[in-house]
C-alpha cells in the first residue's frame, strides 16, 4: 500500500481544531485511515465512562407520575463526570452493594405546599458528601436561571422523597451514560472516492448539497470534474468530526477519554497475548495499566434491577439541612427525614 506520500512531513495522526466551545468541538483528523477514525468515533459515542443515577430508592411518591417513570427521568439527568478516574466501577469495588468510592448519593425531597403547581428541578438534587472528588455527581445545569431539567411537577399536598444512587458506567450498557449527544462525522465531502452512489430524480448535484465548509477544506477542492480520472487506489485520510457534549464532560475530555479507552482495549489484548506466551495464563502486572473489568461478574448486577424498591432507610441522615434547595427549610425541618 502506498503511504509514502503522506509520510513526508509527519508521521502519525494530525488534528486541526476548527471550533471549540464549552460544549462543542469541531475538528479535522488527518493522516489516519478510515478504520482508526471510525473506531475513535465509536469509542467516544459508547465507551467513555460517565456518571448517571442507576438506583432509586423511593420513600415517598404522591405525584401523578409512577415511581419507575420518575426513576427513568432521574437516570437521564446528566451528572458532572470530571476526573471520573477517581470513581470505581461498582462491580470492581470491595463493598457489598455500593459505597462512597463507587457511587454518589443524591437525595430529592420536595413537597408542594402552595396553591401553584410546583416544579422539581435537577438543582433540587442534594449531593451527599464525601465523594471521590469535588465535581463528580453534580447535576449539570447550563440554563441561565440555574434550574436544570425538570424532573416532575407537584400539586398542593403532593410530595416526592427519593434517594438516588449514581454509578459509573458506559453508554454501551445504557444510553444515559453517553457523554455526547451526537458526533458529526464526514469524509470526502465531494465524493471523489465514490464511496457513495447517490439516488436522484434529475440532478444529483442539486439534490445532494455538499457541506460547503468541509468541502472547501479539502485541498483538492471543488466538485468532481467530468474530465478528472478516477483514482481507484485513493483512500480517505481526512475526517471531519463535530462533537457535541451533553455537559458531563468537556468536549476535549471526551476525545481524550476516548483515546484512553482505545489504548486500554489494545493494552488488554497485548497483555493477554504476552501472558499466553509465558504459559502461566495470567502474567498480571506487566507494564500496561489495564483497567479492564476483572473477573467480577453477575452478582452486583442483580442489584441494579431494583430501580424502584420502596425501601425506607431510617439510618440515612443525609445533610438535608444544607440549604442547597429552596425546599430545604420546608415542613420536613432540618433533621433528616422525619421519622
Amino acid at each position: 500500500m502506498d503511504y509514502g506520500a503522506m509520510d513526508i512531513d509527519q508521521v502519525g495522526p494530525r488534528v486541526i481544531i476548527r471550533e471549540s466551545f464549552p460544549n462543542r468541538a469541531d475538528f479535522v483528523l488527518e493522516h489516519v485511515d478510515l478504520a482508526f477514525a471510525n473506531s475513535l468515533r465509536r469509542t467516544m459515542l459508547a465507551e467513555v465512562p460517565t456518571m448517571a443515577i442507576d438506583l432509586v430508592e423511593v420513600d415517598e411518591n404522591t405525584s401523578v407520575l409512577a415511581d419507575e417513570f420518575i426513576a427513568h427521568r432521574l437516570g437521564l439527568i446528566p451528572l458532572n463526570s470530571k476526573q471520573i478516574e477517581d470513581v470505581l466501577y461498582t462491580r470492581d469495588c470491595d463493598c457489598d452493594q455500593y459505597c462512597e468510592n463507587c457511587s454518589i448519593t443524591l437525595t430529592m425531597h420536595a413537597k408542594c405546599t402552595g396553591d401553584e403547581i410546583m416544579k422539581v428541578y435537577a438543582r433540587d438534587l442534594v449531593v451527599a458528601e464525601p465523594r471521590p472528588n469535588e465535581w463528580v455527581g453534580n447535576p449539570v445545569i447550563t440554563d441561565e436561571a440555574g434550574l436544570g431539567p425538570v424532573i416532575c411537577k407537584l400539586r398542593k399536598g403532593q410530595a416526592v422523597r427519593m434517594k438516588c444512587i449514581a454509578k459509573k458506567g458506559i453508554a454501551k450498557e445504557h444510553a444515559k451514560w453517553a457523554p455526547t449527544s451526537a458526533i458529526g462525522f464526514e469524509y470526502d465531502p465531494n465524493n471523489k472516492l465514490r464511496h457513495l452512489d447517490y439516488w436522484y430524480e434529475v440532478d444529483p448535484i442539486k439534490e445532494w448539497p455538499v457541506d460547503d465548509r468541509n468541502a472547501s477544506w479539502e485541498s483538492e477542492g471543488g466538485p468532481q470534474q467530468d474530465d478528472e480520472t478516477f483514482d481507484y487506489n485513493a483512500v480517505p485520510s481526512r475526517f471531519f468530526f463535530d462533537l457535541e457534549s451533553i455537559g458531563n464532560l468537556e468536549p476535549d475530555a471526551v476525545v481524550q477519554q476516548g483515546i484512553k479507552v482505545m489504548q486500554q482495549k489494545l493494552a488488554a489484548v497485548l497483555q493477554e497475548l504476552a501472558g499466553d506466551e509465558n504459559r502461566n495464563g495470567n502474567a498480571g502486572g506487566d507494564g500496561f495499566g489495564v483497567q479492564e473489568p476483572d473477573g467480577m461478574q453477575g452478582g452486583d448486577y442483580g442489584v441494579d434491577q431494583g430501580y424502584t424498591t420502596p425501601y425506607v432507610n431510617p439510618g440515612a441522615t443525609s445533610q438535608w439541612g444544607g440549604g442547597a434547595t429552596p425546599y430545604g427549610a420546608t415542613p420536613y425541618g432540618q433533621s433528616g427525614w422525619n421519622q
Partner: protein
Amino acid sequence: MNAPDRFDTFLLGDGEKKVTEVADTRIPSASTFTFNKEDHTLGNLLRSQLLKSPHVKYSGYRIPHPLVSSFELRIQTDSTLTPRAALQQACRELVSDLSTLSREFTKEWELRKMVGDGAKGDDKDGKGKVPGR
C-alpha cells in the same frame, strides 16, 4: 425476554479469555484469533492496521453472530514473523499512534483556547458558525 444482558457486551465472563489463538492446520503462518467481548471498534481497527504491515499477507475479521459479542480475526503472514507477533506489533503501533493523537489534540486545544478566548464570549451554546481556516 431472552435478550442478552447489556453488560454481556463488554464484561468478560468467568474464566473467559480476551483473546485465543487457533493456528490454521492447512496453511503455514496463519491463525484465527477469537476476541471476546469486543466488536467492530477493535476488529476493524486491527484489521486495517495489520494490512499496513509488509509481512501480513491476509487479514480479515468477522462477527459470527450479531447477538454474541465476539469477533474472529484471521491473519496470514509471510513466515518472517508469526501471526501473533504481527498482531502484537499492530497493537503497539496503534497504542503509539493514539498517544501521538492525544498529544496533538492537547496541543491544538490549548492553542485554540488561547486564540479563541476573546472571541467566543457571546456564543455560549456553541451553535454559532465561525468560518473555518
